[in-house]
């Protein structure tokens, strides 16, 4: 008996040792090693499966291996940091703009001679300096206040509404928006909603809609006052921010909180998914988010929001001249090539990206599956995604309005965003007042820039 047991244990040991030694490598054709292979570290979890499909298709067409790894939501920097130290490091990775570039400068290959760069419709969108071009944006996105027009029409049909306008599209200032929203809250029973705005998600890691997107608006206006150039650049150069429009930020934030589906004290347990689900189920009429959220809305089981009812409003803050304000249009998705990869791999990686953004098959994936509004001249007018939010973004881009740049690309650091988010949370919960938020915003900005 003992002998059998001993033999068995030896076998287990041998097998496990063998398993350790086995290389976990799904590269069946060693010939391709010469042609280079691609390792793409994907930033967008919502389209992870589609990238797998694309990789398989590319392998089928060209025989080049493309390995796609997706970092889980909010862990991109963590994953990149550990992946890039490996021998088998990502050849294509993503930086989030000029601030991301400063962290990864030693790893970014100069892309100024690539076709990919020449495809860019607006060369100024790229992350570049006098040394070269290091990050190429691959998607243009926009955010604002998404609303469900079905509920809005129900409201405007009410006999005892307190506002004079009769269509959601007539809203063109904070004053009007606030009047409509407050009145809707009064009528929420008749409208069948729990609140006008979906939950202001405040749980940890879920505060980015406020600490980046919403904060981008007041910073944009502050920067615009001082210079006519790119506000993204001037934000990057700003070491001592005033946060002049803090009261405007507060007005909007308060509007979200006071007309929410959820009580203030409970917001710290809410995530973005919760908020999008509330919107998709028709429990809220509005939610602040970007066009990437369409996947989230349409995938909620029991979704009652029709595609044609989804519209955008700009985030009005009661700042002078805002009647002409549009959505916030920009990107924080820049592709970079790993400088330390082998020459073959770098070539293969660039070829893969060029294929994705210029071949018919690749473009079809980008437009119809990834739903990206690509900033490349290889895409014709009619080659744009058809999902309702992306359509709305394109509509707004063509309107005669002033679209805001994403100044949050140049916010000092992740730490700054967290400090700011923590202060907001304490404000929401009532343990600190607004002046604490202002103070944190200024101080953390200053100390993180040093």
């Amino acid at each position, binding site marked *: 008996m003992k002998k059998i047991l001993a033999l068995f244990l030896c076998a287990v040991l041998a097998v496990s040792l063998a398993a350790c030694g086995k290389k976990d490598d799904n590269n069946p054709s060693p010939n391709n090693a010469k042609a280079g292979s691609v390792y793409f570290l994907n930033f967008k979890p919502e389209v992870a499966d589609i990238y797998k499909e694309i990789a398989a298709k590319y392998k089928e067409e060209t025989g080049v291996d493309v390995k796609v790894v997706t970092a889980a939501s909010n862990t991109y920097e963590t994953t990149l*940091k550990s992946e890039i130290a490996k021998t088998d490091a990502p050849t294509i990775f993503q930086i989030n703009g000029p601030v991301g570039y400063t962290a990864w400068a030693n790893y970014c290959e100069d892309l100024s001679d690539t076709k990919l760069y020449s495809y860019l419709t607006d060369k100024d969108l790229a992350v570049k300096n006098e040394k070269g071009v290091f990050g190429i944006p691959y998607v243009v996105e926009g955010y604002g206040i998404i609303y469900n027009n079905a509920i809005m029409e129900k409201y405007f049909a009410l006999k005892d509404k307190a506002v004079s306008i009769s269509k959601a599209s007539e809203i063109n200032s904070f004053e009007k928006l606030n009047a409509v929203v407050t009145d809707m809250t009064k009528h929420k029973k008749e409208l069948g909603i729990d609140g006008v705005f979906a939950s202001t998600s405040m749980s940890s890691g879920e505060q980015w809609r406020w600490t980046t997107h919403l904060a981008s608006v007041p910073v944009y206006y502050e920067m615009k006052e001082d210079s006519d150039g790119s506000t993204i650049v001037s934000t990057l150069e700003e070491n001592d921010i005033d946060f002049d429009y803090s009261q405007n930020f507060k007005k909007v934030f308060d509007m979200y909180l006071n007309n929410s589906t959820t009580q203030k004290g409970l917001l710290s347990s809410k995530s973005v998914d919760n908020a999008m689900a509330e919107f998709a189920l028709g429990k809220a009429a509005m939610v602040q988010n970007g066009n990437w959220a369409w996947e989230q809305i349409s995938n909620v089981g029991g979704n009652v929001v029709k595609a044609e009812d989804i519209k955008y409003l700009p985030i009005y803050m009661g700042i002078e001249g805002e009647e002409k304000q549009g959505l916030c249009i920009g990107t924080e998705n820049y592709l970079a090539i790993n400088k330390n990869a082998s020459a073959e791999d770098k070539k293969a990686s660039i070829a893969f990206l060029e294929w994705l953004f210029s071949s018919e098959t690749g473009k079809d994936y980008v437009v119809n599956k990834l739903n990206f509004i690509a900033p490349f001249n290889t895409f014709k007018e009619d080659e744009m995604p058809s999902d309702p939010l992306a359509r709305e973004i394109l509509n707004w881009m063509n309107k005669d309005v002033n679209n805001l740049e994403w100044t949050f690309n140049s916010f000092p650091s992740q730490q700054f965003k967290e400090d700011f988010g923590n202060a907001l949370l304490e404000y929401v919960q009532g343990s600190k007042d607004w002046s604490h938020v202002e103070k944190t915003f200024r101080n953390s900005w200053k100390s993180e820039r040093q």
Partner: protein
Amino acid sequence: MALKKYFPVFVLPTLLAFIIAFAVPFILGLFLSFTEFTTVVDAQWVGIANYVRAFSNDDFLNALWFTVKFTVVSVITINVIAFALASLLTKGLKGTNLFRTVFFMPNLIGGIVLGYIWQLIINGVLQFFDVTITYDPKYGFWGLVILMNWQLIGYMMVIYIAGIQNIPTDLQDASKVDGANRWQTLRNVTIPLVMPSITICLFLTITNSFKLFDQNLALTAGAPSKQTAMLALDIYNTFYGRIGWEGVGQAKAVIFFVIVAIISFAQLAMTRKREVEQ
């Protein structure tokens, strides 16, 4: 003779695993704490600058204080309750085995899962007061203490049961004959004889409480404003959350190691002295 011949065969796999998974990362980590780096392969020597930054970092000192408070409270509660349960369950009551299993169960669930379960439970209760666990750092603190108790009591209880069952009954009978009451029996007979169990239980609870990470991350993630972040979580956040602070995170980790090592060795030395021969 045979033993000598086969010695490397049996030792080598473990030794290799130890070197790869412990010794090399440890030495590398020590080295990295004196450098500035983005990824672990591009380090540049900066001397003790990282240690200076670590000690002048408020977050780190707050986390240290929070961890100390947490450890003191949970070590006491866990061991007292575990010991009480163990003495109850060695009295030969009905259903003893069932209870032992039930109390031990929570220890089989992973920390992250436990953290989320307790977050749901605690938020569910606090909902009646329209707040959540992140409303006040006190809630997070006691939430962590409850969670830690729930998880570790069963494990410590099993160790104490084994210790109590090892006490020869004649000693207890003798004390009864001598006229000792229950309290005196506990103080003068039971506790000295389960001292080995106390040593190991204290060691396990102190180190586990000090090194707590998953539960902290899942339950509060440090909210509000990092006031409930413990040392391990603070190190993690420094290393991964801040560009240019990787070395400081590493330095904090080394300091953390030294603290844990000193405390646990001191505790071992102190309780060992009190162990008696039967």
